[in-house]
């Protein structure tokens, strides 16, 4: 019926894309997101090898410890699929594709944490959330999973939220970033 299925992003407002490198926000909602729930005793949890609150880069996939005994795998469809397929499913392990459930944004720049501070009560200072830290918290009153994954010298955050809130949250981040001249950038749905 259709040749190629296009992924419809939940962010539908078109913002002019900017030039500034200081603070940027991009939509990554299309990226594949798999949730693995595996109790700490299971082999799968051992394979995934991150604890709650931290993250690890595994080839083309980022593995986030987003909840106790719960992992979010983010990456290209093939890379995440191969990681999931390689998991030992013994014990109580479930896998749920969350690509369509969660929207994902990336906020990058020297004022990224100052922007988050306008929306979220978590402490984004270096010792509390060093590079690689993963935090679940509410952003502009929307529950989010936020990972700090710097890009070179720049602070950068991956922000995942329920798809239905995506447009609202995107707008709220733009509003918060206005005082820092935030610009919207187009991002390819790859990470690493």
């Amino acid at each position, binding site marked *: *019926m259709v040749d190629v299925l296009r992924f419809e992003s939940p962010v539908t407002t078109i913002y002019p894309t900017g030039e500034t490198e200081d603070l940027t926000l991009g939509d990554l909602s299309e990226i594949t997101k798999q949730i693995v729930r595996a109790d700490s005793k299971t082999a799968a949890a051992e394979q995934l090898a991150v604890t709650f609150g*931290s993250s690890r880069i595994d080839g083309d996939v980022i593995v986030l410890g987003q909840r106790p005994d719960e992992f979010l795998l983010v990456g290209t469809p093939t890379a995440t699929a191969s990681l999931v397929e390689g998991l030992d499913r013994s014990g109580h392990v*479930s896998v749920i594709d969350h690509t369509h459930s969660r929207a994902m944004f990336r906020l990058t720049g020297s004022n990224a944490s100052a922007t988050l501070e306008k929306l979220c009560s978590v402490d984004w200072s270096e010792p509390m959330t060093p590079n690689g830290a993963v935090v679940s918290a509410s952003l502009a009153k929307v529950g989010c999973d936020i990972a700090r994954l710097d890009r070179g010298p720049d602070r950068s955050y991956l922000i995942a939220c329920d798809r239905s809130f995506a447009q609202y949250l995107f707008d709220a981040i733009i509003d918060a970033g206005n005082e820092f001249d935030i610009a919207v950038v187009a991002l390819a749905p790859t990470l690493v």
Partner: protein
Amino acid sequence: MTRRLPAQAGEVINRSTPLSFKWDGGNLSAFEGDTIASALLANDKRIVSRSMKYHRPRGYLTADFWDPNGFVQVGDDPNVRSGHRLVENGMTIDPQNVWPSLDYDMKAANGLVGRFLTAGFYYKTFIKPQAMWPVYEKVLARFAPGGTVDLDTPHGYHDKRYAHPDVVVAGGGPAGMAAAISAASLGARVMLVEHEHALGGHLRWGNAEDRRLLDELRGKVEGAGVEILTNSTVTGRYEDNWTAIVQRSHPIAVERLIKARAKVLVVAPGLIERPYVFTGNDKPGVMLSGAVRRLINMYAVKPGERAVVFTGNADGDAAIVDLERVGVTVARVVDARQGENIVVAKGGAKALDSVELSDGSVIEADLLVTAVGWTAPTSLLNMAGDRPVYHAGSARFYPSAEIHNVLATGGIAGDGDADQLLAHAEATGRLAANRAAAVAHRVQDLTARALPVQGPEPTWPEDDRQSLPRDSHPALFRSTTHGIVDYSEDVDSKDLVAAAKEGYDSVELLKRYTTATMGPSQGKLETVNTVAVLAEARGETIQEVGTTVWRPPYAPITLGALGGRVFEPVRVSSIQSWHEANGATPILAGAWVRPDHYGDPAAEVTNTRTNVGIIDVTPLGKLDLQGPDVPKLLNHLYTNKWSQLPVGSVRYGIMCAEDGVVLDDGVTGRLSDNRYLMTTTSSGAATIWEWAENWLQTEHPDWQVHVTPVTSGFTSINVAGPKSRALVSRLVDNVDLGPDAFDYMQVRSGTVAGVPNCFMWRIGFTGELSFELHVPSGHGLHVWTALLEMGNDLGVKPFGLEAQRIMRLEKGHFIVGQDTDGLTKAPSLGMNGLIKLDKDDFAGKPELAWAMEQSLPSLVAIQTTDPAEVPTEASQIVRAGTNEILGRITSSRMSPTLDRSICLGQVLPEAAPAGTELTIVMIDGRRITARVMEHQAHFDPEGQRLRG
């Protein structure tokens, strides 16, 4: 600017930028840097307002933020502190509370009225006749003090921000600056907050030595990496050092509320100078020493020509020096330390002309300066649990106890010379940095994620503060005469004495009865004098009387700043853009925005019943359940049985809370051996997720079930109507949709319009043959438009929530929360077959067991005798001829299908049997009759269409 002095060494005005503004209709000029108060006084405008009760003319007393007489209206901004707000070019400023007018002399009336406008006079008058009180009330309301709200005031951009500093310093005087510098030098992240427009505190209006110190401290603090916030106020300290800061100096926001989780709060607010109580103390021309010094040294304004200075301390002495320097004649110094006193300030209503002293002499003067001591603004400390203690030797209150994460320094903690003060502040800064580091360490330690704690717990030297000396000060509160204690409330010391004699003799009752300390400065000027007068009346000490409670905010804070940018999340489905583009009328359901209808809900119903309709039901709650123990969980949450649900089947169930009250309902389908998909009502989605987790985590941690919400992951579309199968089969090719292969209450997975991994189940709220498609949301819009395109010839049309509500009512399906209420137990629903008391346990089981034996209200279908009458939802059902309530209509609509009114209602058991004749009271009072129906469904009770 007739009272403007030649340039002063420390002045903060910029003479090269003149400004003009309007005051009370006339044009005046000022310089950049002038406050409204300094500008008015420079222009010799000495009367700025009238008092609240007696309407006496008032002039500046403190000429700063706390001036009780200086409230003005600036454009649409009421109650502006003219001693603080800077003049802007073109500003329109008006006096408020000036009836009959600023200058009119009401002396005679005042004298008469004053005698009986005593404290509590309201309570003793207007008692009879009762009917007259509303009339009096309207008159009194006209006397309400304060400015005017312009209801068209735009909200403006108000910002908010969270912060996690190590140390917040409240107050940017010498003590605050020194504390900030020393804390920052130890690596602490410090926010230094100053209420005034610039750092410096008292030093800003001090002498050459003060100015030198100010320059030195400012230089250091600016180089110390401290975040400096001027024209910003720490307005409150809440639990766990949650600290509110209002920043009025943000570059783009009108105001910004900063919510700082300070590890340590340093309170360095200095002291607030206290007025003296004596007859005539509110005459224009009576000023505090700080006011005079600010006016001369910061604003180059000459406060008078001929002054009497009543001094009990060094600040008063310093004021004499300043006055004489700028050519004010100091006619007499009345030194309280020598036992001298002032008794009465005399003159006309508009100005002071002489001062009577305790030795009987009367000195001509147009300015009376008093320096009688201070109020310690212990407010922030008290919010942290501290209770102030009175120290008689220095005649002021002090903080009492040591609070681990709230430290006090500067004038509030004691006196001493500049070196002692700075030493104390620096030691406080060090201690604050040290304690903050310990807190940071502990917080990291508590955060049980794999983030390394940075280094060992710091072990720096602990507290090395040398306590500050307390200078002796005469106890100066009230002279031998009576006078105003609370300027903004117009409360006289005589009122306080009378109230105490009447029995309102604890400080709290006195406050409430007389309203002393309840005005805009909240006791910053009045508290100590109030307490002193009461102590005198009761023959007790000031400490025994105690103070009233200081409460947040430290200084009044606008609703705009508190409200800030408002976060009200809204949720939309993937199809929302289509709905908007196609004329849907939106409706809010919780946080969801959904189409209520597309123009004509009745037509949508008819089309769905005759052809095929599609509705976006994405908000339906969806939970992915996986694990071997899912049936146990289902058995526990639902009242019916779940152990035998075959793969590919869907079942309906009701959930109750532990008290048997209906919580939610919905269907759950078994997708594979270990995987189920549960749907809940849209509003119940979050609750049921938490409810399920609660049982799993607390009562049954041994059950292996993973519950994961997938509501937004699937765009849910219900395709309903006799032609729905025809339509769906055009989009689905790998699933047999035939009635035998895919029966009612079954679930299949497959590809829809080329989108893989879709689920579809054969259920429907509308009572029609229907297929509910759950499509991965990244392709939801694609499937929606494909359905419309492919079904064009079948007459497919979208329908909204309203059409769905009508159709479900035609079918007699109830809605939890509409047809049930906070007390409706499951047996009221007429589905007792779904309550399986032979299960071992399920939520609410005992209550349901007992409830099944009682006669409860029932939910029944009702039709009015006159088919055209649609009773408003919530219309009451009564016993005929009486007002005795037998039930109520919970849902009602005009049915386009049956062309008549249809209802659901909750009725008492006696009114529940089919055929019972009911009386419904319409909201216009008419009574109509109606009948209880045999089936809950008004339409197709056998469910033939559904199964089609």
